[in-house]
């Protein structure tokens, strides 16, 4: 197959960037989308041009590293599929394809299709954990968990942190990502102690990073490669609201274990 590719080129953070067009021959329908880009990069290298930088690693849809907007959709046209699991057989000979990086204020472009997603790590740092030291812990079967609850927690925990939700959202909101972690931990008995504080501090961090707010477009759910449900955003909103009610007036200060 022959493809006409329009790809975002930007040499570094401060470069303005532009779209560039490439003609690519010899594309096999059984190639993955990333193998098609490998093929283009081999061609660019042979011609003495700079290959296209893109993030990728596991190439089996779980690391969350690959991140590109293909023809206007995060991870391309196939639902619940990461870019690395998208195959060229889903395109036709002679197709024009537009490839761009995630676009969001909180995800600055590093080079070409590579963006800086460290904002997601900082949201997790704000409370996306159950505080623990390593060492002896209670016997797990002493705290039974309804399998339905556990499975729902896993539905949320299956988020790969790729950032497609942000790229898909007209408002660049990170609510699906944030709500998935808040729901995962908030559903489990182990996560109750910090549940409301977690919801507040993660949302606060999300706002500080420059992500927009949620306006119920639901594009995030439509383009999420793991099919994370926007119901979790509802859960987050409920927890966030409750947090303002249940949070006691802080008279004692906060104590850290020594």
């Amino acid at each position, binding site marked *: 197959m022959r493809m006409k590719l329009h790809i975002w080129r930007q040499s570094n953070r401060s470069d303005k960037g532009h779209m560039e067009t490439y003609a690519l021959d010899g594309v096999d329908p059984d190639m993955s989308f990333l193998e098609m880009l490998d093929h283009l990069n081999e061609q660019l290298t042979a011609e003495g041009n700079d290959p296209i930088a893109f993030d990728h690693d596991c190439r089996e849809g779980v690391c969350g590293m690959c991140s590109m907007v293909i023809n206007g959709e995060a991870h391309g046209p196939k639902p619940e599929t990461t870019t690395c699991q998208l195959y060229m057989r889903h395109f036709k000979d002679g197709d024009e394809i537009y490839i761009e990086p995630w676009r969001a204020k909180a995800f600055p472009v590093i080079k070409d299709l590579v963006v800086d997603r460290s904002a997601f790590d900082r949201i997790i740092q704000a409370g996306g954990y159950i505080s623990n030291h390593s060492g002896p812990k209670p016997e797990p079967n002493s705290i039974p968990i309804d399998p339905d609850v556990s499975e729902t*927690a896993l539905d949320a925990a299956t988020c790969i942190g790729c950032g497609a939700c942000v790229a898909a959202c007209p408002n660049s909101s990170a609510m699906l990502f944030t709500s998935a972690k808040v729901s995962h931990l908030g559903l489990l008995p182990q996560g109750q102690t910090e549940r409301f504080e977690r919801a507040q501090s993660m949302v606060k961090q999300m706002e500080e990073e420059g992500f927009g707010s949620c306006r119920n477009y639901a594009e995030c759910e439509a383009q999420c490669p793991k099919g994370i449900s926007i119901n979790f955003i509802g859960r987050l909103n409920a927890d966030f609201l409750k947090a303002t009610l249940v949070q006691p007036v802080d008279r004692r200060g906060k104590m850290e274990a020594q």
Partner: protein
Amino acid sequence: MLTLDAKIPRVPIEDAWTTHKNELRLVGPNNRPKYKVIVVGSGLAGASAAASMGAMGYQVECFCFQDSPRRAHSIAAQGGINASKNYRNDGDSTWRLFYDTQKGGDYRAREKNVYRLAELSTAIIDQAVAQGVPFAREYGGKLANRSFGGVLVERTFYCRGETGQQLLLGAYSALEEQVAKKSVRMHVRSEMMDLVVVDGRARGIVVRNLETGEITSHAADAVVLATGGYGNVFYLSTNAKACNVTATMRAYRRGAGFANPCFIQIHPTSIPASGEYQSKLTLMSESLRNDGRIWVPRDPDEKRAPADIPEKERYYYLEERYPRFGNLVPRDVAARNAKDVCDKGLGVGPTGYGVYLDFGSAIKEKGSEEVISKYANLFEMYERITDDNPVETPMRIYPAVHYTMGGLWVDYNLMTSIPGLYAIGEANFADHGANRLGASSLMQCLADGYFVVPVTIGDYLSRHAAGEIGESHEHFKKVESEIESRLDSMLNIGGQRSVQSFHRELGKIMWEHCGISRSREKLEQGLEKIPALRDEFWSNLKLPGGRFEFNRSLEDAHRVADFLDFGELMCRDALMRDESCGCHLREEFQTPEGEAQRNDDDFAHVAVFEHKGDGVEPERHVESLSFDALPATTRNYKT
């Protein structure tokens, strides 16, 4: 000169770890913040170690080359994690998990290490549940188990087909908790380029910032390598694209012993490569062999679609060759036989390197509904990649390199032969011998990271003052400039071939000469081809761009250069191990029935290689293994 003192406690195996812990020196809580520990890698082993040591109060600096610690390839593990909880009341125990692991490893692992792993397995589950890892539960809300890979008990804990992801996210969240508390500093998109050793002790690392290209030094009181395995020396493997051997190879070049490099595990059921452009291989769970029958056409010139080939013209080679186990022979036997029939020209698919895994009989027997419901996600994954529906046409599968049991030699404390340098997880050689049991890799990474290294490291640190050598030491500057000139010389070759093409060719050499089955002749040929390829690499490499920019080709080139050196070491080890054991099959050493023939008299040992300089043959040292608790036996899958 390498000294291999494994520091194995001289007490009965059941008491070894407890006794050892009681005898270790510790660093008090008030002194821990004075010590700086570097952790390289943020997968299950690295993230769990960094989080644990950060929580204890050490100053931890953690490095990963991905954009976030959550990306590490531990995330891709599907099946599960073993722990001898004995929740099923089916006779499981620490002893039985130890026994299964040691037997699975074909008696090429250190007994007391393996026992400790089994002993710590249950605490890992407790730790993970406390972190919020949503393991599968039964109706009553208790943890569920499944059986896995040829053991007689149900001890595998799982989260659907994404156990590795959930355990890694647990370790990642623990790590981020410590980052928030400022006890761990995380450096992302930062690759370790070399290890700095001063006065025979590990003092820090030199790192390249992958975004800016800047080279910096980081000094520490101890360095922990959690940098994974080296399966990508084969180019095509189930590893993530960026997995590499550089950190451990650099440590080897700086004096750490490399143990059993030739021990690699090849998984029998991966989706075959579809063409030359193939960039990686994807695993299909082995559980498929429970219902799928493996066959190839008897006629090498067969052109018909699989469904049109009559029953008697199909060669069900595993069922014919191993009537008792049939399609459920162990991983290595299944892999070897698949290669064998393909080498005889019977393979299927566009490349001729594939065999059919046919669900036709199971569907006829049980109905398609039952079969589909059992394997729905796997069938879907297969169809996504190949565009074939396994219900209508047989799957095509082929073996793929999956896991590497070899790694840096470590003592019982997980310290390498360089004092102050530790290796944990897949990066060390310690627990799996010549073959790893299914669902044991996650267990080992977390045992090392949560429970072993945070304790043993104190013993070393307490014997030395904190912060003896800083980044300003001349040795750091020296290593920095060595790395700078190495990268510059790569950029200045100005040849014709891309990094990818070299890596691909190395992979083919390794697969052909040091793959599923090895022979003296093929290994010797490999040892000629690799240096020739390396010479071409250093004279005909074409790299785009410069050093002070985001340059993926340069990153790859630095890794491939180390793979080229490492491939040679692997062939050498395979050549010197004149026996077959576990996954290592030397064609000269087989029983008349074609089974692996172990030689306990001459090879019941760990082979440890010491670097002697470029172009000089490495020295092979030996750590003898003793089987006091569990006498070695021979496995037999024929009868």
